[in-house]
């Protein structure tokens, strides 16, 4: 299974357009942000004394949506590609089972989706450390850890949900559309339930992600359960479809 995971990882990384876009778009945003802030600082250091430091690093949350979008696209493609492309039957003909294939790809997907987000994250951290930030608190190790955890959980979970949707839908374009719609809008719409039933808030994905990475007064145990159950539901839907689909 490790040889297959390694080969599948190489295959995903060979999708140069997708991978480069996933890496370079967030990196470009960080560079543009840094350039604009430096320009303002150089032009008028009195009004704009701080460029780096903790405030620059907090742009992680701005990049979060971009990372979720790319993680979702990668997950949906990874899930739907083989059926849509007609390559699934040739994988199954090697004797490699559907279940093993489905399970092997989960860690590969997590590595790719999180891996493409890391360069921008590291660049943001470097910018926060080296750009001028007089009077501004510097970035702490705990802050780095917290935001890294947030990145890993957000990108990883949304990519896994998209993977489950991709396997279930089996059309690459359709899977991307549905997964993006669900991840960017649908799950947020669930938050409206809290207006009528405030007690369900800890069971919503957004709340659980915030609770685990940023803290809060709700139960951490419930948050962890939610972070497991939400992707597990979509993965289960995908798995049921994967096991029943005629390749």
């Amino acid at each position: 299974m490790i040889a297959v995971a390694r080969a599948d990882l190489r295959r995903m990384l060979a999708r140069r357009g997708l991978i480069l876009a996933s890496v370079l778009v967030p990196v470009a945003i960080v560079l543009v942000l840094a350039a604009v802030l430096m320009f303002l600082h150089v032009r008028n250091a009195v009004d704009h004394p701080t460029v780096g430091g903790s405030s620059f690093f907090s742009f992680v949350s701005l990049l979060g949506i971009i990372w979720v979008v790319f993680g979702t696209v990668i997950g949906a493609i990874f899930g739907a590609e083989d059926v849509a492309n007609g390559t699934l039957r040739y994988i199954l003909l090697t004797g490699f089972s559907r279940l093993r294939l489905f399970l092997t790809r989960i860690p590969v997907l997590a590595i790719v989706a999180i891996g493409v987000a890391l360069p921008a994250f590291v660049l943001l951290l470097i910018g926060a450390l080296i750009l001028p930030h007089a009077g501004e608190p510097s970035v702490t190790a705990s802050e780095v850890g917290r935001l890294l955890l947030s990145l890993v959980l957000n990108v990883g979970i949304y990519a896994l949900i998209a993977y489950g949707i991709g396997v279930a839908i089996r059309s690459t374009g359709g899977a991307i559309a549905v997964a993006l719609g669900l991840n960017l809008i649908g799950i947020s719409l669930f938050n409206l339930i809290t207006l009528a039933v405030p007690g369900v808030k800890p069971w919503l994905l957004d709340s659980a992600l915030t609770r685990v990475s940023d803290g809060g007064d709700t139960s951490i145990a419930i948050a962890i359960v939610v972070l497991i159950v939400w992707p597990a539901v979509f993965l289960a839907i995908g798995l049921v479809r994967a096991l029943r689909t005629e390749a």
Partner: protein
Amino acid sequence: MADPIIRCERVTRTFGNRTALDNVTLTVEPGRCFGFLGPNGAGKTTLIRCLLGLARPTSGNIVVRGFDISREPAAALARVGAIVEEPRFYGYLSGRQNLELWAAYVGDDAISRVPALLSRVGLDARAGDKVSAYSLGMRQRLGVARALLSDPEVLVLDEPTNGLDPDGVAEFRVLIRSLVEQDGRAVFISSHLLDEIEKVCDDLAIVNQGRVITSGTLADLIAAGGRELRVECDDAARAEALLRALPTVTAVTVSADGTLSVQLAPDSIETRAGVNRKLIEAGLAVSRLEPREDSLEERYLALVHEAGQA
């Protein structure tokens, strides 16, 4: 005789009210090329999908390499290679990268076979190119290389020459025969192309509307058809009357140039010599006596027509 490498017993597959396969029974022997011939929509691809475990028969059994495909698919498919409908690859990977990826799925030492296989199918010079830039013929050949990764005992090829140009078809035919004759592998080919089946296959089954209407060796199938003798002699009218009286002759026609077409009963073994003897004993000078057997095309059309009428 060795155990068959593929055995289908009363395989039926239905889709709603439509019966795609109807009690299909056939065997494929090791080291033979078996043709599964039938018109479009006859059920060829459905049978291939069933015997590769990609679809489940509604009833009946399929045994591949001694293993029931429904119960032990991994064991049955461990040394089976296939191209189903068309060879599909990841277009953004090169030919070599694609084979290396599938070698990982196959396991064992399949990765070590990749260079030799690329060479065997004549793709070593283009192995580094992306598959999206390959012609259909190149993809077919890469498909064969992929099918050979597991060093299969049997190859299953679904309409393998569809869309190939004449050169590609000829190259593919040579490749298939080498797999049978040099390697001793069994090859199962489905096709609607009579010429292709006739040139590469040893055995065949003809399928129509999901039913196998005949099967056997190619030679037996052709020999089982109607046989004809073309006869030229010095008195066509006398010869016609004489031959019509023979019990082994089913029909006689005379063309404008005086050539007789004599239809012989299929089960007679001495009819040609008998006809000749009869004519000479009657004092006729026979200047030409040429046997003409049905072509595969004629046999195929006759059988499919008969099956359609039945």
